[in-house]
């Protein structure tokens, strides 16, 4: 306790918290005075016999040293003194200090922010128990074209695998969907999820009331049950204490609430507010019963000790043990023997952002390296400028270690302050990030600056310290006193070794900047390609609206709704065309059909086609702006005609009927289950990139609603072309639907352009960030170049003066400095381009329509770098050209 008090005082003492030197000297002085008084008194008051003054002085000095040591902690005292000295130096050289600190803060902030995101999004385990054992499982039939981009396991494989599983202990289906939930008389659209009972348990579902599902409840024909989430229970069920056993209608089916799930359960994602049992259809061996294959989104949990590869092998054996039927081929395409894949759930969920995030992480690292090089250069330049000062301090007795320590302290102070600044910026960035990022960016709400990121920032500060402090420190310790004091300092200062080191740093900055510029150019070009792809429709000035009728509603009611809504909305001011369809661009549902039809050349017999199949009303094509290439679109006369008109797209023609005339081609009984009716191709349109601009065109066909059994039932997608801003007619369209059929639930009503914008939000965000990074890199590199050149010019005034005196023209001096600055940049640029050529292929997964060695990008980056470098060199060069020889020579 006493010791703690003493050390506390002594640590305070190191920060000038103790008694002042003056106070101590006064006390010792008073002691000596009293000692003299005493001596005088003893000698009889006549003559003072003071001790010799040299002895007194020695005693005083020795006592003062002992007191100073006792007052504080000697080594801490030195550190505090060094830090004070460094702070004074910073305040004196404000411009220098600000540049160094801001550079470092920006570098640290960008790295720390991006790594916060990487850590939270890509690396942190999912919030489920045994998350590292969860794998996404699906099967592939190599060579076959699956019905959609979803990855499925067939129900046949599922049950075959679960017969005797060894590598997995849980296998279950899951999915998030939007449902119509009716409680009492209110109905709302909301997201819910399906999950197999065992899977829900495995991912950690906990009830706060009631119970989870039993396995039997996921069998076909079982009682219909539902688990509600705490938020839904609170918001929609008024926290009803007797909710267990209550019945609510979900998609028009009554379901009994069996449990309330704790609020922190976010499976498969945060959108889900209630859970239904996932029913995996069993495959009957009785040919009269259900033999249809269905596809399931599946998650498995690896048995303890089993690997994903072992699960893949076991799953593949199961998939190959079941028959492949027509309906299997509809889902998975006609391909080779199936192969089962098992990929870590975390990797799977973050797959869409993973490539771009790693690119950004690499980019941020480059920025940090540039920042460190910049600070090193600044400190180095300053170290050279201070050579004289250091020499003087060495001459009056400061040890080399002491000087080196002083220099390292300055660098460390720089690093610490820069890091603190960087962390403050990071803290702010991480807070605003979720608002800036695209809506469907996974796991971003979980991002915060965590301890690992703090450690990373501290590590980068250490790197910065070592990089920027060591070199001047080593140079400082090696000072040659005579040369520095005598040799006119500045003119000979630096020396070739420092210059080489400085050029190396500048070159490295240029190289990293070039690398980032190439990366940003690639991203930007990729984004431009993505937004300039012709998607086969015109999204501008289109309003989309989704209406859902209860499952019990008859098909005629759907037709009735469509007719009346279309008629009413066509008369609304601002709406120029309106139609409805089973599908529309950028909505996830896809309907596929297969036809067996005569080939273009009769001798080839029947061919099997697979195509995305739309059922639309007349007006749909005009409203969404399909590109008619041949023939005609649908018109009102097509409905109920004796012949079924069909429109196909160019991809359908290219794949199945190359070099054949399509218009007027007729097929008999396309749908064996329909009443006999001929189908005639009346038009060819361009392919619609339904699932996003980055997708490949698929064969598509269109039928008219109401021909044969082709009709829109239940869910209707209205599409309306407007002559005004589509969002202004949103309310009117909602009103029309609501008035037409009050039992219809209205889904999202939004401009199609908004959907398009959302669909490319992720690449746009990544591009924005990377371009910002490249700009920062360019700025930092040019600051470094400017700083070093300005400094070099100021140090070489004498040499420049001599050159001017000997007849060098201003242009020649300008040229001299410009070439010096640019040669370093060009060397760095060359290295940067070579590195880019080697590294950009790792960006491939994040690029669209642009190769990793895209010539335009590789040409644009050097232009930007050279222009900025020239701008940075210009002022120092002009400064050099304006040196007055007489004055420059006189100052020395």
């Amino acid at each position, binding site marked *: 306790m*006493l*010791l703690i*008090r*003493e050390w506390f*005082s*002594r640590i305070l003492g190191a920060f000038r918290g103790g*008694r002042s030197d003056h106070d*101590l000297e*006064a*006390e*010792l002085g*008073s*002691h000596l*005075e*009293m*000692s003299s*008084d*005493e001596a005088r008194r003893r000698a009889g008051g006549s003559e003072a016999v003071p001790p010799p003054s040299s002895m007194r002085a020695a*005693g*005083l000095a*020795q*006592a003062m*040293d*002992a*007191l100073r*040591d*006792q*007052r504080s902690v000697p080594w801490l005292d030195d550190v505090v003194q060094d830090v004070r000295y460094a702070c004074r130096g910073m305040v004196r050289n404000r411009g220098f200090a600000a540049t160094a600190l801001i550079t470092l803060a920006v570098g640290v902030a960008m790295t720390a922010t991006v790594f916060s995101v990487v850590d939270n999004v890509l690396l942190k385990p999912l919030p489920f128990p045994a998350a590292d054992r969860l794998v996404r499982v699906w099967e592939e039939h190599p060579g076959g074209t699956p019905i959609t981009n979803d990855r499925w396991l067939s129900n046949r494989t599922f049950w075959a695998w679960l017969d005797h599983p060894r590598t997995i202990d849980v296998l279950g289906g899951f999915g998030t969907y939007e449902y119509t939930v009716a409680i009492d008389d209110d109905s709302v659209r909301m997201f819910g999820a399906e999950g197999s009972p065992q899977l829900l348990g495995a991912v950690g579902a906990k009830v706060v009331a009631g119970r989870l599902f039993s396995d039997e409840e996921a069998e076909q024909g079982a009682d219909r049950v539902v688990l509600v989430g705490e938020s839904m229970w609170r918001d929609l069920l008024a926290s009803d204490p007797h909710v267990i056993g209550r019945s609510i209608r979900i998609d028009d089916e009554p379901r009994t609430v069996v449990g309330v799930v704790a609020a922190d359960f976010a499976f498969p994602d945060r959108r889900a507010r209630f859970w239904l049992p996932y029913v995996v259809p069993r495959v009957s061996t009785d040919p009269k019963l259900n033999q249809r294959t269905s596809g399931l989104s599946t998650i498995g949990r690896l048995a303890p000790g089993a690997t994903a590869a072992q699960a893949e092998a076991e799953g593949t054996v199961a998939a190959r043990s079941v028959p492949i039927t027509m309906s299997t081929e509809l889902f998975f395409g006609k391909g080779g023997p199936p192969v089962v894949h098992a990929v870590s759930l975390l990797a799977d969920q973050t797959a869409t952002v993973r490539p771009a995030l790693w690119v950004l992480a690499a980019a941020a690292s480059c920025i940090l390296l540039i920042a460190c090089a910049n600070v090193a250069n600044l400190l180095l330049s300053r170290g050279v400028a201070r050579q004289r000062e250091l020499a003087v301090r060495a001459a009056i007795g400061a040890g080399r270690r002491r000087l080196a320590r002083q220099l390292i302290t300055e660098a460390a102070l720089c690093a610490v302050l820069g890091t603190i600044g960087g962390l403050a910026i990071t803290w702010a960035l991480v807070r605003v990030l979720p608002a800036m990022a695209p809506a469907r960016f996974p796991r971003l709400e979980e991002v915060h600056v965590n301890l690992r990121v703090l450690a990373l920032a501290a590590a980068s500060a250490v790197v910065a310290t070592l990089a920027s402090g060591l070199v001047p420190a080593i140079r400082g310790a090696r000072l040659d006193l005579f040369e520095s004091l005598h040799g006119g300092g500045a003119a000979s200062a630096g020396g070739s070794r420092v210059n080489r080191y400085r050029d190396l740093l500048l070159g490295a900055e240029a190289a990293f900047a070039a690398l980032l510029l190439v990366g940003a150019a690639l991203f930007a070009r990729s984004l431009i390609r993505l937004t300039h792809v012709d998607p086969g429709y015109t999204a501008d000035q289109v309003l989309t609206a989704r209406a859902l009728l209860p499952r019990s509603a008859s098909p005629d009611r759907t037709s009735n709704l469509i007719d009346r809504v279309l008629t009413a909305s066509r008369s609304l001011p601002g709406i120029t065309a309106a139609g409805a369809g089973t599908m529309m661009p950028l909505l996830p549902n896809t309907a596929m059909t297969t036809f067996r039809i005569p080939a273009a050349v009769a001798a080839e017999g029947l061919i099997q086609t697979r195509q995305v199949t739309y059922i639309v009303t007349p007006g749909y094509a005009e409203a969404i702006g399909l590109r008619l290439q041949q023939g005609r679109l649908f018109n009102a006369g097509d409905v109920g005609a004796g012949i079924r008109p069909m429109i196909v797209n160019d991809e359908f023609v290219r794949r199945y009927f190359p070099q054949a005339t399509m218009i007027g081609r007729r097929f008999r009984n396309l749908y064996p289950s329909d009443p006999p009716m001929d189908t005639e191709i009346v038009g060819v349109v361009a392919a619609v990139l339904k699932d996003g601009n980055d997708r490949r065109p698929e064969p598509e066909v269109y039928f008219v609603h109401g021909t044969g059994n082709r009709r829109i039932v239940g869910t209707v997608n209205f599409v309306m072309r407007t002559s005004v801003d589509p969002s202004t007619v949103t309310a009117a369209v909602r009103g029309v639907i609501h008035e037409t059929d009050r039992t219809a639930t209205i889904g999202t009503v939004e401009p199609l352009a908004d959907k398009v914008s959302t669909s490319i939000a992720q690449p746009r965000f990544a591009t924005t960030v990377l371009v910002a990074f490249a700009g920062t890199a360019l700025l930092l590199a040019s600051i470094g170049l400017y700083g070093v050149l300005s400094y070099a010019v100021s140090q070489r005034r004498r040499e420049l003066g001599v050159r001017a005196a000997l007849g060098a023209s201003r242009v020649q001096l300008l040229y001299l400095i410009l070439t010096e600055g640019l040669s370093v940049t060009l060397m760095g640029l060359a290295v940067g381009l070579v590195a880019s050529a080697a590294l950009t292929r790792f960006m491939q997964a994040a690029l669209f329509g642009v190769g990793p060695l895209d010539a335009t990008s590789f040409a644009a980056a050097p232009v930007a770098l050279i222009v900025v470098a020239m701008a940075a060199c210009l002022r120092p060069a002009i400064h050099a050209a304006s040196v007055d020889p007489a004055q420059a020579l006189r100052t020395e």
Partner: protein
Amino acid sequence: MAGKPRVDVLQGTLDMIVLQTLLTLGPSHGYAIAARLEQVSHGSLRLNMGTLYPALMRLEQRGLIRGKWVVTESSRNARSYRLTAAGKRQLSAERDGWERMASIIHLLLRGEG
């Protein structure tokens, strides 16, 4: 006084000696403490400034004594120290310890007799 043999302060006893002196004298300055010790020891215990003042500073840092500037009777400025309550407690603890130790050493040295 040259004839008297000088003794060194026994390791670890300086703090106790200073505290005891302050208890005896009441608040006093460094010179008075040194003078008192010299007087009590008949000149064989002489503390130099480099020993005494760091000890006073240490005791003050530990909160056992408190110093303040005063004007002495001979109208000199001096820093006077007084025992704090903690100082008194510490002194009595150290004195007990010392007395126990001293009696043990006493017994040990005259063990046979």
